[in-house]
């Protein structure tokens, strides 16, 4: 961390809502951060579940800032074991007015000879947001992961909602959606998006928590991840055979409206899947990357088991010299394989739970058939029975 961004001199205690200590047993750790969420959904009583993301974002930010503080004091050294675990925050209660989340640490960081970087992180974050609100400036010298974590705070806030730091003080720091947009620089072409990306892991750096994702079109995208527990998933993905196995990342990425995905800022989950479907691979990969809300806004991401099953169905049909179908996603996250000619239509529907339906209609002859086959063999038999004169 750069010198100009060293820990603020203020060493005041983290303020504690006055009656919260009484509500907790003596062996429960003290409340931890002086936060408050107000306005909009937070003024209607209770804590809206959709607002929980803000607390998770805050937890992530505490992790990242504490890591940066530790690295600043211990250059070149690895983080101590269970560093992140000891920074885990727990909700002990929500207080009214609007909503005050009372959090506690499960245990002190307890690194011999070192301050508690968790406590320091909380105070650093308060100072940093005071500066963001007044100067629209992130702390310099922080890691990329910490910068991303700062930018995620407030991501789910509505127009009239506030995330407040030092909430019980005389001068609370009030952070809003509008201030966040100003910080993200929404007047540029680059924006931060949450979504799905598909590809293969080309390299992985566990120390820096960075990786490179190669997309199906051959572009390499640099990425980083904050949650150390994702390393195992990424490592497994890195070892997968290249030819047929891909991964789907649920992630936050920088998107340039003219140049596409620029950088992966953080990863929420990693899911591998296999496609062995010559001739249909490109389409299936496209479908694997469909975002939540595709189409008119209600489309669900395609279920990966469904995608893999369609790949297997196609392998079986191709062996029967079947012509490639058109493949379409359903709004519920399933897939349909369809063939059509001048008078007839044949479809294979695979729902998100991999249940099958097959249907054939020939308006020329009036022939109609429907089945719910319990396996690929019966499905292949059905498709073979209803040839569409060259389309399948």
């Amino acid at each position, binding site marked *: 961390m750069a010198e100009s961004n060293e820990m603020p001199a203020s060493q005041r205690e983290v303020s504690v809502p006055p009656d919260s200590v009484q509500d907790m047993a003596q062996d429960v750790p003290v409340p931890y951060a002086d936060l408050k969420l107000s306005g909009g959904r937070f003024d209607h009583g209770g804590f809206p579940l959709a607002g929980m993301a803000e607390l998770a974002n805050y937890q992530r930010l505490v992790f990242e800032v504490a890591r940066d503080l530790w690295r600043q004091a211990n250059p070149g050294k690895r983080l101590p074991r269970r560093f992140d675990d000891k920074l885990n925050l727990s909700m002990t209660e929500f207080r009214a007015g609007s909503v005050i989340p009372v959090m506690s640490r499960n245990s002190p960081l307890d690194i011999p000879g070192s301050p508690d970087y968790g406590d320091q992180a909380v105070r650093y974050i308060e100072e940093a947001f005071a500066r963001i609100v007044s100067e629209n400036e992130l702390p310099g010298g922080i890691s990329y992961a910490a910068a991303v974590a700062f930018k995620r705070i407030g991501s789910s806030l509505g127009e009239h909602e506030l995330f407040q730091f030092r909430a019980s003080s005389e001068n609370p720091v009030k952070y809003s959606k509008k201030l966040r947009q100003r910080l993200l620089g929404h007047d540029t072409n680059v924006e931060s998006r949450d979504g799905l990306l598909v590809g293969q892991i080309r390299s992985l750096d566990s120390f820096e928590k960075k990786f490179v994702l190669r997309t199906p079109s051959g572009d390499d995208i640099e990425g980083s991840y904050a949650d150390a527990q994702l390393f195992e998933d990424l490592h497994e993905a890195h070892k997968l055979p290249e030819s047929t196995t891909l991964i789907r990342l649920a992630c936050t990425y920088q998107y340039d409206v003219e140049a596409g995905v620029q950088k992966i800022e953080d990863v929420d989950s990693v899911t591998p899947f296999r496609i062995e479907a010559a001739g249909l691979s490109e*389409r299936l990969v496209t*479908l694997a990357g*469909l975002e939540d809300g*595709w*189409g*008119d*806004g*209600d*489309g669900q991401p395609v279920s990966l088991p469904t995608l893999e099953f369609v790949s297997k169905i196609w392998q079986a049909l191709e062996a029967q010299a079947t012509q*490639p179908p*058109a*493949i*379409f*996603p*359903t*709004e519920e996250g399933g897939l*349909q394989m*369809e063939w*059509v*000619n*001048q*008078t*007839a*239509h044949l*479809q294979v529907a695979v729902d998100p739970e991999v249940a099958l339906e097959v*249907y054939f*209609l020939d*308006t020329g002859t009036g022939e*109609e058939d*429907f089945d719910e086959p319990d396996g690929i063999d019966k499905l292949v038999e059905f498709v073979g029975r209803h040839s569409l004169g060259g389309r399948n």
Partner: protein
Amino acid sequence: MALTSWLSSWGGTALAAEISEDPGPVFEPLHAGEELLVDPDERYLRQCTPMHFSNGQVSELLFKQSSQDGGKLSGSRSSRCTPEEAYEFRVNTLGKPSAGTWGVTVGDVIGALSRVVDDSGSESAPSPPIPPGHAYLDFRHVKAKADERRLRSTLTIIANRSGPAFLAEV
């Protein structure tokens, strides 16, 4: 001799009774201000989300209603709106994606045992902004899944045979 009488005369009594008793589709009554489309050559125009158009083929999902549709699949009638106007409205006014406009004739729809109703001047019209020449393909009388499947599949064959009425530039 009527068909049913002929059937009865040689023993096809049960089938004759079934035919004579088949009333055809039993539709919901029209609301005030709704207009039933009767010109068999007029087209019902429907927008296709880009993911439901692939390899030059449109999916039967083009005619699949969502839970919000309530049995009325939204489209436009060709006498009040061109395929391009219908596309422009969806993309520019509603801000929704579209691969283009596909159509089936009113005669095709009647042949598939449904109907098209212009509700643009009725109280039951969708809330604004209303697509130009708004009309709906009626699914409310279709109670059995098998009948709905047949209707969708029939219209899919026709829509693919006709090809796009207006195709968006990629």
